[in-house]
Structures are given as C-alpha cells and as structure tokens.
C-alpha cells in the first residue's frame, strides 16, 4: 500500500507550495503517472480521503492523467500503445520490442487554488 506514502508526500509538498506561493485552499490536484507504474488510482483516492482532512487540500478533487504503456516495435519500426500487459507488439504480435513509456512515477502536475 505505497499509495499511502505517496499521498503523505503529496500533502507535504502541497503544504510547502502553499507557504511558498501564498495559497491556503486547494480545489483540484492534477496528478500524472504511468499505467505500468503499479500506482492504483482507487487506492490513491482512498489514501487521500484518509489523509487530506485537516490540510489545505481537504475535500479537493483528484484528477489523474494516466500515461499508457508504450512499446517500440522493431518489426513495425513504430511506437505502439499497449492494449494488455503482454510485452509484444499489439499490431504485428512481434516480440522484438522495447518498453519506452508507461512506468512514469507519480508527479504533481498542477493545482487549482483559491
């Protein structure tokens, strides 16, 4: 359940940003992460509901930009968006591929503040 640690770090970051930029209330937090990074959106929301009360982000909306898994296929000579967890080209089925996207770590992209 690393989502709890991630949310705790996120809330500390938001408090620091509030002190630095002079806001107190956050309405929306936009987060991004890769689909293959083993971050679970539901667990993030649950951890946020547990941890946010009492902070400036209490009651805020979480918006997720989930980045797809991407494989470069040597046979197609193209980047392909993964449609399953199988590490093979979703178009030609080839296994001469390299993962080029989808394990991006959780980032705070943007806040909407009052």
């Amino acid at each position, binding site marked *: *359940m*690393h989502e709890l*640690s*991630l949310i705790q*770090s*996120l809330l*500390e*970051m938001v408090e620091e*940003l509030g002190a630095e*930029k002079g*806001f107190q209330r956050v*309405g*929306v937090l936009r*987060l991004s992460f890769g689909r*293959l*990074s*083993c971050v679970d959106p539901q667990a993030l929301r649950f951890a946020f509901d547990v941890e946010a009360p009492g902070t400036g982000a209490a009651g805020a909306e979480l918006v997720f930009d989930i980045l797809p898994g991407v*494989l470069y296929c040597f046979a197609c000579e193209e980047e392909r968006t993964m449609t399953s*967890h*199988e*590490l093979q080209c979703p178009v030609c089925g080839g*296994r001469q*591929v*390299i*993962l080029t996207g*989808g*394990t991006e*770590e*959780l*980032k*705070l*992209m*943007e*806040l*909407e*503040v*009052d």
Partner: protein
Amino acid sequence: MSTKVTVVKNVLDANDRLAAENRTLFADKKVFVVNLMSSPGAGKTSLLERTIQELQGTWKIGVIEGDIQDTYDADRIAALDIPVVQINTGGACHIDGNMVREALPGLNIDAMDLLFVENVGNLVCPAEFDIGEEMKIMILSTPEGADKPAKYPLMFQSSTALIINKIDLLPYVSFDLEKAKRDALILNPKLLIFEISCKTGDGLKDWTRWLNEQITALASK
C-alpha cells in the same frame, strides 16, 4: 476565483533529496551500497549469506536488514560475524531514504567497503523509493513464475542486475526461463542476468566475481 499553479514535480521529491544526500555521504566514505529487492521468499537473505561468505575475506561488509517486523534475517547475518542493523518498518512495505539515514549511526561506515540493504519483500514499492544506493539488484525465483517482469515492470526497469534464483528447481516448476529473460530485457535492455541456485551454489561465482569487479572499480576511483 481559482488560479492554476503549474508544478510538475515528482511526488517523492522529498525522498529523492534525502537519498541524494545519502549518495553523497556514501561516495565520500567510498562505500558501495547495494539495494537488494525481491518478493518475500525469493532468497534475499540466502543470497546475502552466500555472497558475504565469498567476499568477506576481501571487503569489509555491513548489512541493513529491512523487515516489517522481527529479527530472523538480522540474526542469520549476525551469525556470519558481520555488523548488521535491523530496520523494522512497522507495516511499511519498503525502505525509504530517511530510514537508511537513521540506521547509519548504528553502523561504522568509515570502516566499510560494501553495504547491503535488504529491502522489504515486495515487488512494487521498493522500486520507487531511492535510498541513495549505487545499484539496485533484484531477485526473481523460479517458483514465482515467468510472468513477473510483465506484471512488475518498474522493478525490472530500475535494477542493474537480475538474479534468477532457485534454478535447481527448474525440473519441478513450470518456469519459462527464456520468456522471463526476454521480457526482462524488453523492460531494461541493459539488465545483466545471473542464473543461480543459493542451495547448490550453481552460478554463484559468476555473480560474486562481477560484484567484486564493481566494488574494485569504485574503490580505485
């Protein structure tokens, strides 16, 4: 009236900063730090026992043992006459940069060449938390199945070497060794792969020889 504030920052930024401080300290002290990761029961402690026995004549070694609770693993390492500090994470599923920093006063790293950090058994979270290590090494054991690279890509992607352990069990388990290696290399084309058995000792020499070369390279910098 709400305002948008652009941030674009890693959520684990605070941990990354602590880990960077650890890394500077380890570089100053010339300690080679290995972050050892795997699922529970893959053989982290067994690999440590074997590796320590092989290298303790050459290098001064220390170990940080991370466990959710208990000291079974730390007791096994201490039996080899190696300084060991236990971190009980108290439920947390990984070791972070701060836990390592707090454990350091319990070890005399001035008199140390090689420090192993045995992470909590888990294929998800430890991959995300930098602790300031020189390299991450992961173990996959054959009974776990060859589907693990595809299921836990980050761990394979962030490791320098993959140790496939329990190869003595290959005749008894349905583990597709070629698929495991192929998928691991799709995730991380630079990954080094060692096939070993901590029980029989097969393949161990290749691993310890390689590790020895890495430590020698750092020590002579």
